[in-house]
Protein backbone atom coordinates (compact mmCIF):
# COMPACT_ATOMS: atom_id res chain seq x y z
CA UNK A 1 0.00 0.00 0.00
CA UNK A 2 1.37 3.44 -0.86
CA UNK A 3 2.44 6.01 1.71
CA UNK A 4 1.03 9.51 1.79
CA UNK A 5 2.27 12.60 3.60
CA UNK A 6 0.44 15.84 4.38
CA UNK A 7 1.28 19.53 4.21
CA UNK A 8 -0.87 22.23 5.72
CA UNK A 9 -0.64 25.54 3.86
CA UNK A 10 -1.83 28.38 6.08
CA UNK A 11 0.01 31.21 4.37
CA UNK A 12 2.42 31.69 7.26
CA UNK A 13 5.00 28.98 6.70
CA UNK A 14 3.79 25.52 5.92
CA UNK A 15 3.29 22.76 8.48
CA UNK A 16 4.29 19.26 7.46
CA UNK A 17 3.23 15.90 8.74
CA UNK A 18 6.21 13.92 7.58
CA UNK A 19 5.05 10.74 9.30
CA UNK A 20 3.47 8.98 6.38
CA UNK A 21 0.12 7.21 6.45
CA UNK A 22 -0.70 4.11 4.42
CA UNK A 23 -3.76 4.05 2.16
CA UNK A 24 -4.90 1.63 -0.51
CA UNK A 25 -5.29 4.41 -3.06
CA UNK A 26 -5.81 8.13 -3.57
CA UNK A 27 -9.49 7.78 -2.68
CA UNK A 28 -8.55 6.50 0.79
CA UNK A 29 -6.12 9.37 1.23
CA UNK A 30 -8.80 11.83 0.15
CA UNK A 31 -11.30 10.49 2.73
CA UNK A 32 -8.68 10.79 5.47
CA UNK A 33 -7.66 14.28 4.34
CA UNK A 34 -11.29 15.43 4.39
CA UNK A 35 -11.60 14.23 8.00
CA UNK A 36 -8.37 16.02 8.98
CA UNK A 37 -9.59 19.24 7.36
CA UNK A 38 -12.91 18.98 9.21
CA UNK A 39 -11.09 18.37 12.51
CA UNK A 40 -8.73 21.29 11.98
CA UNK A 41 -11.44 23.73 10.98
CA UNK A 42 -14.25 22.75 13.33
CA UNK A 43 -15.43 25.74 15.38
CA UNK A 44 -12.87 28.06 13.73
CA UNK A 45 -14.11 28.02 10.17
CA UNK A 46 -13.59 31.72 9.54
CA UNK A 47 -9.97 31.58 10.75
CA UNK A 48 -9.06 28.55 8.65
CA UNK A 49 -11.15 29.22 5.55
CA UNK A 50 -8.16 30.24 3.43
CA UNK A 51 -6.05 27.22 4.39
CA UNK A 52 -5.33 24.24 2.19
CA UNK A 53 -4.25 20.67 2.90
CA UNK A 54 -2.00 19.12 0.27
CA UNK A 55 -1.47 15.36 0.10
CA UNK A 56 1.70 13.96 -1.41
CA UNK A 57 2.42 10.46 -2.67
CA UNK A 58 5.67 8.56 -2.18
CA UNK A 59 7.13 10.19 -5.28
CA UNK A 60 6.64 13.63 -3.76
CA UNK A 61 3.85 14.57 -6.16
CA UNK A 62 0.90 16.53 -4.81
CA UNK A 63 -2.03 14.22 -5.56
CA UNK A 64 -4.74 16.06 -3.61
CA UNK A 65 -5.15 19.75 -2.84
CA UNK A 66 -8.05 20.25 -0.46
CA UNK A 67 -9.06 23.86 0.19
CA UNK A 68 -10.69 24.26 3.60
CA UNK A 69 -13.34 26.53 2.08
CA UNK A 70 -14.58 23.64 -0.07
CA UNK A 71 -15.57 21.74 3.09
CA UNK A 72 -16.68 24.70 5.18
CA UNK A 73 -20.19 23.95 6.44
CA UNK A 74 -20.76 27.59 7.36
CA UNK A 75 -20.81 28.37 3.62
CA UNK A 76 -23.46 25.78 2.84
CA UNK A 77 -26.24 28.36 2.84
CA UNK A 78 -24.69 30.25 -0.08
CA UNK A 79 -25.88 29.87 -3.65
CA UNK A 80 -23.43 27.70 -5.69
CA UNK A 81 -22.10 30.62 -7.76
CA UNK A 82 -21.59 32.73 -4.63
CA UNK A 83 -19.89 29.87 -2.82
CA UNK A 84 -17.59 29.32 -5.81
CA UNK A 85 -16.71 33.01 -5.64
CA UNK A 86 -15.88 32.78 -1.92
CA UNK A 87 -13.75 29.69 -2.49
CA UNK A 88 -11.89 31.43 -5.30
CA UNK A 89 -11.31 34.45 -3.10
CA UNK A 90 -9.97 32.20 -0.30
CA UNK A 91 -7.59 30.55 -2.77
CA UNK A 92 -6.26 33.94 -3.89
CA UNK A 93 -5.99 35.14 -0.32
CA UNK A 94 -3.80 32.12 0.48
CA UNK A 95 -1.57 32.94 -2.48
CA UNK A 96 -1.24 36.54 -1.30
CA UNK A 97 -0.49 35.46 2.29
CA UNK A 98 2.19 33.08 1.02
CA UNK A 99 3.74 35.77 -1.15
CA UNK A 100 3.84 38.23 1.76
CA UNK A 101 5.34 35.57 4.02
CA UNK A 102 7.93 34.72 1.39
CA UNK A 103 8.79 38.38 0.80
CA UNK A 104 9.24 38.97 4.55
CA UNK A 105 11.54 35.99 4.77
CA UNK A 106 13.57 37.28 1.85
CA UNK A 107 13.94 40.69 3.53
CA UNK A 108 15.01 39.04 6.82
CA UNK A 109 17.46 36.81 5.01
CA UNK A 110 18.93 39.79 3.16
CA UNK A 111 19.29 41.77 6.40
CA UNK A 112 20.93 38.79 8.06
CA UNK A 113 23.33 38.27 5.15
CA UNK A 114 24.35 41.95 5.18
CA UNK A 115 24.86 41.90 8.96
CA UNK A 116 26.81 38.67 8.75
CA UNK A 117 29.06 40.01 6.00
CA UNK A 118 29.81 43.01 8.21
CA UNK A 119 30.55 40.83 11.21
CA UNK A 120 27.53 42.08 13.14
CA UNK A 121 24.87 40.26 15.12
CA UNK A 122 21.80 39.02 13.26
CA UNK A 123 18.72 36.95 14.01
CA UNK A 124 19.89 33.43 13.23
CA UNK A 125 16.54 31.65 13.43
CA UNK A 126 12.82 32.29 13.76
CA UNK A 127 10.31 29.67 14.88
CA UNK A 128 13.07 27.08 14.68
CA UNK A 129 13.94 27.91 11.05
CA UNK A 130 17.29 29.36 10.07
CA UNK A 131 17.12 32.90 8.74
CA UNK A 132 19.89 32.08 6.28
CA UNK A 133 18.97 28.62 5.04
CA UNK A 134 21.58 26.12 3.90
CA UNK A 135 21.75 26.21 0.13
Amino acid sequence: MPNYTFELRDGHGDLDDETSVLFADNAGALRYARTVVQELSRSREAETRTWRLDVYNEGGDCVIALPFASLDPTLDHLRPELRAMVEKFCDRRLSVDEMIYSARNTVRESQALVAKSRGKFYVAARSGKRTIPDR
Partner: protein
Amino acid sequence: MQTVELFPEGRVPVTLTGIAMIEPSGASRIRTLPEQASSARLLGNRLLAALPGDSFALLEPDFKDVVLPQGFVCFDPGDPVNQVYFPHSGMISCLVTTGDGEMVETSSVGREGAVGLQSGFGRRVSFTRALVQIAGKFTVLPAARLENAVSRSPALRDVILRYIETLWAEAQQNAACNAIHDGSARLCRWLLQCADKIGSDQLLLTQEFLAEMLGVRRTTVTLLAQELQKNGIVRYSRGRITILDRPALKAAACECYNAVKHDRPLGGTGMTI
Protein backbone atom coordinates in the same frame (compact mmCIF):
# COMPACT_ATOMS: atom_id res chain seq x y z
CA MET B 1 10.53 -8.31 42.56
CA GLN B 2 7.39 -10.15 41.49
CA THR B 3 6.41 -11.39 38.04
CA VAL B 4 2.93 -11.75 36.60
CA GLU B 5 1.60 -13.25 33.43
CA LEU B 6 0.26 -10.75 30.95
CA PHE B 7 -3.02 -11.08 29.16
CA PRO B 8 -2.59 -11.73 25.41
CA GLU B 9 -3.13 -8.10 24.45
CA GLY B 10 -0.56 -6.92 26.96
CA ARG B 11 -2.90 -6.14 29.84
CA VAL B 12 -1.83 -6.75 33.36
CA PRO B 13 -4.38 -8.35 35.71
CA VAL B 14 -6.17 -5.70 37.70
CA THR B 15 -5.50 -7.60 40.89
CA LEU B 16 -1.85 -6.71 40.73
CA THR B 17 -0.05 -5.54 43.79
CA GLY B 18 2.99 -4.09 42.09
CA ILE B 19 4.09 -2.50 38.85
CA ALA B 20 4.52 -3.61 35.28
CA MET B 21 7.69 -2.38 33.65
CA ILE B 22 7.71 -2.93 29.90
CA GLU B 23 11.20 -3.91 28.86
CA PRO B 24 12.67 -3.54 25.36
CA SER B 25 12.42 -7.29 24.91
CA GLY B 26 8.68 -7.04 25.48
CA ALA B 27 8.84 -8.95 28.74
CA SER B 28 6.95 -7.33 31.59
CA ARG B 29 7.75 -7.32 35.25
CA ILE B 30 5.87 -6.26 38.31
CA ARG B 31 7.81 -4.42 40.96
CA THR B 32 6.67 -2.78 44.14
CA LEU B 33 8.52 0.23 45.42
CA PRO B 34 10.14 0.23 48.83
CA GLU B 35 7.89 1.27 51.69
CA GLN B 36 7.36 5.04 51.68
CA ALA B 37 7.01 7.34 54.62
CA SER B 38 3.51 8.77 55.14
CA SER B 39 4.86 12.24 54.44
CA ALA B 40 6.03 11.19 50.98
CA ARG B 41 2.55 9.93 50.10
CA LEU B 42 0.96 13.09 51.43
CA LEU B 43 3.33 15.23 49.37
CA GLY B 44 2.70 13.26 46.18
CA ASN B 45 -1.07 12.99 46.07
CA ARG B 46 -3.27 15.93 47.06
CA LEU B 47 -6.33 13.82 47.76
CA LEU B 48 -4.38 11.70 50.22
CA ALA B 49 -3.07 14.92 51.73
CA ALA B 50 -6.66 16.18 52.08
CA LEU B 51 -7.85 13.11 53.99
CA PRO B 52 -8.57 13.62 57.69
CA GLY B 53 -5.74 12.21 59.81
CA ASP B 54 -7.78 9.35 61.27
CA SER B 55 -9.04 8.34 57.79
CA PHE B 56 -5.51 8.28 56.44
CA ALA B 57 -4.43 6.15 59.38
CA LEU B 58 -7.22 3.66 58.60
CA LEU B 59 -6.03 3.23 55.02
CA GLU B 60 -2.29 3.53 55.34
CA PRO B 61 -1.48 -0.08 56.38
CA ASP B 62 -2.89 -1.31 53.06
CA PHE B 63 -1.19 1.18 50.74
CA LYS B 64 1.29 -0.15 48.20
CA ASP B 65 3.51 2.18 46.21
CA VAL B 66 4.12 1.20 42.63
CA VAL B 67 5.30 2.54 39.30
CA LEU B 68 2.99 1.91 36.35
CA PRO B 69 4.03 2.14 32.69
CA GLN B 70 2.24 4.13 30.01
CA GLY B 71 -0.58 2.09 28.50
CA PHE B 72 -1.25 0.06 31.64
CA VAL B 73 -4.98 -0.68 31.86
CA CYS B 74 -6.31 -0.32 35.40
CA PHE B 75 -9.80 -1.42 34.40
CA ASP B 76 -11.78 -1.98 31.25
CA PRO B 77 -15.50 -1.28 30.94
CA GLY B 78 -17.33 -3.97 32.90
CA ASP B 79 -14.32 -4.93 34.99
CA PRO B 80 -14.80 -5.02 38.75
CA VAL B 81 -13.06 -2.13 40.46
CA ASN B 82 -10.74 -4.06 42.74
CA GLN B 83 -8.07 -1.43 43.27
CA VAL B 84 -7.96 2.30 43.88
CA TYR B 85 -5.09 4.19 42.24
CA PHE B 86 -3.74 7.43 43.72
CA PRO B 87 -1.32 9.02 41.20
CA HIS B 88 1.75 10.80 42.54
CA SER B 89 3.58 11.66 39.33
CA GLY B 90 1.66 9.86 36.58
CA MET B 91 -1.79 10.34 35.09
CA ILE B 92 -4.71 8.05 34.36
CA SER B 93 -7.29 8.74 31.65
CA CYS B 94 -10.84 7.47 31.77
CA LEU B 95 -11.85 6.61 28.22
CA VAL B 96 -15.08 5.73 26.55
CA THR B 97 -14.39 3.11 23.88
CA THR B 98 -16.51 2.34 20.84
CA GLY B 99 -17.10 -0.97 19.09
CA ASP B 100 -14.68 -0.11 16.29
CA GLY B 101 -11.88 0.62 18.73
CA GLU B 102 -12.09 4.41 18.85
CA MET B 103 -11.51 6.01 22.25
CA VAL B 104 -12.29 9.44 23.66
CA GLU B 105 -11.19 10.73 27.03
CA THR B 106 -14.00 11.77 29.36
CA SER B 107 -11.86 12.64 32.37
CA SER B 108 -8.33 12.34 33.64
CA VAL B 109 -6.88 11.92 37.08
CA GLY B 110 -3.49 13.01 38.31
CA ARG B 111 -1.99 13.85 41.65
CA GLU B 112 -5.15 15.77 42.60
CA GLY B 113 -7.29 12.64 42.89
CA ALA B 114 -7.71 8.91 42.46
CA VAL B 115 -9.30 6.36 40.17
CA GLY B 116 -11.68 3.71 41.49
CA LEU B 117 -12.97 5.66 44.48
CA GLN B 118 -16.56 4.62 43.72
CA SER B 119 -15.61 1.21 45.12
CA GLY B 120 -15.63 2.84 48.55
CA PHE B 121 -19.42 2.55 48.47
CA GLY B 122 -19.56 -1.16 47.66
CA ARG B 123 -18.66 -3.47 44.80
CA ARG B 124 -18.60 -1.55 41.55
CA VAL B 125 -17.79 -2.25 37.91
CA SER B 126 -15.98 0.28 35.77
CA PHE B 127 -17.97 2.13 33.13
CA THR B 128 -14.89 3.41 31.30
CA ARG B 129 -11.43 2.15 30.46
CA ALA B 130 -8.96 3.57 32.97
CA LEU B 131 -5.59 3.74 31.27
CA VAL B 132 -2.25 5.04 32.52
CA GLN B 133 -1.61 7.92 30.18
CA ILE B 134 1.65 9.06 31.72
CA ALA B 135 3.87 6.61 33.54
CA GLY B 136 4.74 7.41 37.11
CA LYS B 137 4.40 6.57 40.76
CA PHE B 138 1.05 5.53 42.19
CA THR B 139 -0.25 4.41 45.55
CA VAL B 140 -2.57 1.43 45.19
CA LEU B 141 -5.22 0.41 47.72
CA PRO B 142 -7.45 -2.69 47.63
CA ALA B 143 -11.05 -1.58 47.04
CA ALA B 144 -12.32 -3.78 49.87
CA ARG B 145 -10.10 -1.92 52.33
CA LEU B 146 -11.42 1.41 51.15
CA GLU B 147 -15.02 0.19 51.49
CA ASN B 148 -14.26 -0.97 55.00
CA ALA B 149 -12.68 2.37 55.94
CA VAL B 150 -15.53 4.38 54.40
CA SER B 151 -18.07 2.45 56.44
CA ARG B 152 -16.17 3.47 59.58
CA SER B 153 -15.33 7.07 58.72
CA PRO B 154 -18.04 9.60 57.73
CA ALA B 155 -15.30 12.17 57.09
CA LEU B 156 -13.63 9.90 54.54
CA ARG B 157 -17.01 9.25 52.90
CA ASP B 158 -17.54 12.99 52.65
CA VAL B 159 -14.16 13.65 51.03
CA ILE B 160 -14.73 10.89 48.48
CA LEU B 161 -18.22 12.10 47.64
CA ARG B 162 -16.97 15.62 47.10
CA TYR B 163 -14.12 14.43 44.91
CA ILE B 164 -16.48 12.31 42.81
CA GLU B 165 -18.64 15.41 42.38
CA THR B 166 -15.69 17.34 40.96
CA LEU B 167 -14.85 14.44 38.66
CA TRP B 168 -18.46 14.38 37.47
CA ALA B 169 -18.27 18.12 36.84
CA GLU B 170 -15.09 17.60 34.85
CA ALA B 171 -16.72 14.89 32.74
CA GLN B 172 -19.64 17.21 31.98
CA GLN B 173 -17.28 20.03 31.05
CA ASN B 174 -15.30 17.67 28.80
CA ALA B 175 -18.49 16.58 27.05
CA ALA B 176 -19.30 20.21 26.27
CA CYS B 177 -15.69 20.91 25.28
CA ASN B 178 -15.56 17.96 22.85
CA ALA B 179 -18.79 19.11 21.24
CA ILE B 180 -18.12 22.83 20.96
CA HIS B 181 -14.47 23.81 21.00
CA ASP B 182 -11.94 23.64 18.22
CA GLY B 183 -9.11 21.13 18.15
CA SER B 184 -6.36 23.66 18.82
CA ALA B 185 -8.03 25.09 21.93
CA ARG B 186 -8.80 21.59 23.20
CA LEU B 187 -5.21 20.48 22.66
CA CYS B 188 -3.96 23.52 24.63
CA ARG B 189 -6.45 22.86 27.44
CA TRP B 190 -5.48 19.20 27.54
CA LEU B 191 -1.73 19.95 27.69
CA LEU B 192 -2.26 22.43 30.54
CA GLN B 193 -4.44 20.04 32.53
CA CYS B 194 -2.00 17.24 31.95
CA ALA B 195 0.94 19.37 33.12
CA ASP B 196 -1.00 20.41 36.23
CA LYS B 197 -1.94 16.85 37.04
CA ILE B 198 1.58 15.48 36.88
CA GLY B 199 3.29 18.61 38.19
CA SER B 200 5.67 19.01 35.27
CA ASP B 201 5.82 20.98 32.03
CA GLN B 202 7.47 18.07 30.27
CA LEU B 203 4.95 15.54 28.98
CA LEU B 204 5.96 12.17 27.64
CA LEU B 205 3.21 11.56 25.12
CA THR B 206 3.09 10.19 21.61
CA GLN B 207 0.99 11.82 18.91
CA GLU B 208 -1.06 8.64 18.63
CA PHE B 209 -1.94 8.85 22.33
CA LEU B 210 -2.84 12.51 22.07
CA ALA B 211 -5.01 11.82 19.04
CA GLU B 212 -6.91 9.16 20.94
CA MET B 213 -7.42 11.47 23.91
CA LEU B 214 -8.82 14.23 21.74
CA GLY B 215 -10.77 11.91 19.46
CA VAL B 216 -9.07 13.16 16.28
CA ARG B 217 -6.70 11.75 13.63
CA ARG B 218 -3.00 11.55 14.34
CA THR B 219 -2.24 13.89 11.44
CA THR B 220 -4.54 16.51 12.96
CA VAL B 221 -2.62 16.40 16.25
CA THR B 222 0.71 16.63 14.44
CA LEU B 223 -0.37 19.72 12.55
CA LEU B 224 -1.89 21.36 15.63
CA ALA B 225 1.24 20.66 17.70
CA GLN B 226 3.39 22.11 14.93
CA GLU B 227 1.26 25.23 14.89
CA LEU B 228 1.92 25.66 18.63
CA GLN B 229 5.60 24.95 18.11
CA LYS B 230 5.83 27.51 15.31
CA ASN B 231 4.44 30.11 17.72
CA GLY B 232 7.04 29.20 20.35
CA ILE B 233 4.42 27.89 22.80
CA VAL B 234 5.60 24.30 23.00
CA ARG B 235 8.55 22.28 21.79
CA TYR B 236 7.73 18.94 20.33
CA SER B 237 10.15 16.14 19.73
CA ARG B 238 9.30 12.50 19.27
CA GLY B 239 7.21 11.45 22.24
CA ARG B 240 7.98 14.51 24.36
CA ILE B 241 6.13 17.82 24.59
CA THR B 242 7.66 20.66 26.57
CA ILE B 243 5.55 23.68 27.48
CA LEU B 244 7.70 26.75 26.80
CA ASP B 245 5.20 29.58 27.21
CA ARG B 246 2.48 28.77 29.73
CA PRO B 247 0.68 32.16 29.56
CA ALA B 248 0.43 31.88 25.77
CA LEU B 249 -0.81 28.30 26.08
CA LYS B 250 -3.46 29.44 28.57
CA ALA B 251 -4.52 32.20 26.20
CA ALA B 252 -4.88 29.68 23.39
CA ALA B 253 -6.77 27.14 25.52
CA CYS B 254 -10.53 27.05 25.74
CA GLU B 255 -12.40 28.32 28.79
CA CYS B 256 -12.78 24.74 30.02
CA TYR B 257 -9.27 24.86 31.45
CA ASN B 258 -10.27 27.35 34.11
CA ALA B 259 -13.64 25.70 34.61
CA VAL B 260 -12.20 22.32 35.58
CA LYS B 261 -9.10 23.35 37.49
CA HIS B 262 -8.72 21.28 40.62
CA ASP B 263 -7.22 23.92 42.85
CA ARG B 264 -10.49 25.41 44.08
CA PRO B 265 -11.81 24.96 47.56
CA LEU B 266 -13.84 21.76 47.61
CA GLY B 267 -17.35 22.52 48.80
CA GLY B 268 -17.61 23.91 52.28
CA THR B 269 -14.74 21.88 53.63
CA GLY B 270 -12.13 24.49 52.81
CA MET B 271 -10.17 21.63 51.32
CA THR B 272 -8.43 22.03 48.02
CA ILE B 273 -7.62 19.24 45.63
